[in-house]
């Protein structure tokens, strides 16, 4: 138990911080409740999926600057394919978009491995490529989304036979996020691929000497990152009902949440739950500042300050812990 707390201290701390922030929200806005949680979850969903994708790549010792652009490609491709399609066709469209995400990520990874150009340079270049592709597919917001897909992330959870009061407060967006992340990441994390992703991020040359296929593992990590980016793009379409060719501010937000979530830039350390909690922490802070009607420009300064303060606080705790 003590060990569990020691190794997951950062994540637990973030969970507590989030709980405190939600309590504070309730104090600021006494009628904050189910609908407030729901809109918070829906706003956070694309950010969270982008962050998860980024976290996988960062754990593997890389970075993918094209994450937001890949989301845009996925969003418009999904919206175009689903526009006027039947439910059955929409399922196929979703599968196609997810496959596209895997392919985009794998291409990013393959370019890095084969050309040996730095990940930052390659993915920065690919950022422009994917942005161009997204605008080619759809040069203005448009398209459509299947109603069942939109229903996946809107509103609270209702279970047959269970009173709505028990589960109704839990936003579908949060359940969707948890489900897809667990469905994709848990099998990976428990397999050798998961170990190898941490291994190449921790020490690529030691991993190579241990017989890990470093190049292929790196490509796999970028592909998983691409898959989550595609899910993030779909979630944009699911939330708004249309495809968005111009990506939102997901790139920098995802890097920020990854760092705040306890994943070490440089690789090898951290998990996915921390970054997800960090996204909600950052979104809740923003929401609270809006509720307090703080000038948006001042709010941005406050958000940045909080991030630096939290990360530095963590570093101080870590060095104390080692000294004791």
């Amino acid at each position, binding site marked *: 138990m003590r*060990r569990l707390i020691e190794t997951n201290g950062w994540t637990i701390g973030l969970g507590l911080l989030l709980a405190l922030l939600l309590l504070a929200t309730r104090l600021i806005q006494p009628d904050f409740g189910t609908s407030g949680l729901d809109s918070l979850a829906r706003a956070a969903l694309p950010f969270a999926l982008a962050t998860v994708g980024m976290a996988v790549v960062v754990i593997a010792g890389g970075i993918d600057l094209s994450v937001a652009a890949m989301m845009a490609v996925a969003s418009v491709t999904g919206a175009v394919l689903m526009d006027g399609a039947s439910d059955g066709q929409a399922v196929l469209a979703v599968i196609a978009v997810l496959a596209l995400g895997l392919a985009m990520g794998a291409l990013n990874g393959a370019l890095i491995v084969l050309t040996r150009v730095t990940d930052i340079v390659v993915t920065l270049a690919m950022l422009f490529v994917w942005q161009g592709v997204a605008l080619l597919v759809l040069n203005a917001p448009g398209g459509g989304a299947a109603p069942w897909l939109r229903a996946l992330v809107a509103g609270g959870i209702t279970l047959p036979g269970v009173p709505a009061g028990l589960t109704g407060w839990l936003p579908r967006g949060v359940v969707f996020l948890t489900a897809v992340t667990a469905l994709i990441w848990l099998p990976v994390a428990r397999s050798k691929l998961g*170990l*190898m992703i941490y*291994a190449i991020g921790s*020490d690529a040359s030691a991993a*190579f*000497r*241990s*017989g890990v296929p470093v190049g292929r593992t790196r490509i796999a990590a970028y592909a998983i990152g691409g898959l989550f980016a595609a899910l993030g793009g779909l979630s944009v379409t699911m939330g708004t009902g249309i495809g968005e060719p111009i990506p939102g501010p997901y790139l920098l937000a995802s890097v920020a949440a990854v760092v705040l979530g306890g994943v070490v830039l440089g690789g*090898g350390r951290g998990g996915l739950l921390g970054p997800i909690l960090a996204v909600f922490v950052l979104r809740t802070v923003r929401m609270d500042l809006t509720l307090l009607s703080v000038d948006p420009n001042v709010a941005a300064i406050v958000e940045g300050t909080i991030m630096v303060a939290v990360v530095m606080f963590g570093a101080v705790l870590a060095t104390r812990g080692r000294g004791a």
Partner: protein
Amino acid sequence: MPDAAPPTAILDAKGVAKRFGAVQALRDASLKVDRGQVVALMGANGAGKSTFVKILTGVLRPDSGHVRIRGRDSSVASPAGARRSGLVPVYQEPSLIPDLSVADNLRLGDTPADPFRHWAGELGLPDLRPDAMIRSLSLASLRIVDLARALAIEPDVLLLDELTAALPTDLVDRVLRVVRAQADAGRAVIYISHRFTEIAAICDRATVLRDGLTVGDLAIEAGIEERIVELMLGGTVAAATTGTRGARSRATDVPRLRVRGLATGTRLSDVSFDLGKGEVLGVVALEGQGQDELFDVLAGNRRANAGTVEVDGRPAVFTDPADAIAAGLTLVPGDRAQALLMSRPVRENIALPLLARPRRWGAIRMRDEAARVTRAIERLQIDTRAQGEVRRLSGGNQQKVTIARWIARGVQTLLLFDPTRGIDIRTKNQIYALVRDLADQGAAVLFYTSELAEVRLACDRAVVIFNGRAVDVIDAKDADEPTLMRAAYGLSEATGVST
């Protein structure tokens, strides 16, 4: 004597060659290891040993020649491939993932857990927790974990590279017993070590490399050390008797640098010496005997665990490089890239230490600085046709820049770490002359070199470090290569370490 016994040869490498750009690292290396044998692979610095190891373990692909394991051509191009064909290496740098637990590291290499636990216990780590993070283990434990992991796979050929370098003596004994038992059980071991006592204790044969060639394959017997040293040195023995420099009359007053019982980390355990003004003191050591740590402590990059340093008779403790520089000690590191701003011009690089004094943080007095920099450039005959960036200069010229920057400042104590590695002979001679000039002007120079012949060419005396201890001080006139080599291998310590 190499005897032809094809059925028992479990690893057979023949005619292996490898070239890196203009450097022919290996010309014709061969190695044969039979079942039931421990074979030592030996070679002086630059003999091509590490390249050969990389080829045997599949990290590099040879340009020509072949490596056969159990009679099958192992045209392995990856560590995983070498492992599949039955060769498992334990490298000098543990190949464990720092951010994974012991158990996860085992899973990563498909190592069975029970045999691993058995071997870890056998090697002196019975209480190792499988969920312990690699990051939290000591270097000695890491090496044991790495070895136990290799043993658990039950490899046909075990390659051990400087395995005992970071181990305390009680562990060394256990490790040697286990390694010998492996061979006695019918497996084969390739054993790389600088320590003749260990080789005498467990090895059956020794294969010696020199200049990328296998020059000998000897059975280990009493007194074989001399023969191995001779083979490692080859023809260079005669060549190095030129340019004898008598020991200069050392200044009898307070030495510039007095080091007593210096120790840090696992490698540097007890080094003492005096370095006088006007003296060039060589440091001779095989790789990884603690010389890196010694220079790091003297340059303020690292703190000592024990021992004292006195500068001009005053005790000195350096908490960072600026302290050492303030006390007049300046390091020219082995890695030029560490010292230079590669993408800035030569002049800026030379001027930087001049400017990096707080008193000078104001405006730069251009004319004054420019003159000093120009003098330094002329003095060193640096080819500045490449006016632009330092990285465009040749290696030799870059090295001259690293020295020039400190000369421009007026150096008191210069710490040179292998300054002539990979540099052409003309530039080498310029550097020797420069070092001598500096000494004649009163500077004290500590000169670590991986080329034994340089001791006579550039130094007055040399302190020999073996296994973290200063084992000998030799005057330049007596410092022929065999003497230095014997001392560096810890053989001269009691003239009879040979068992």
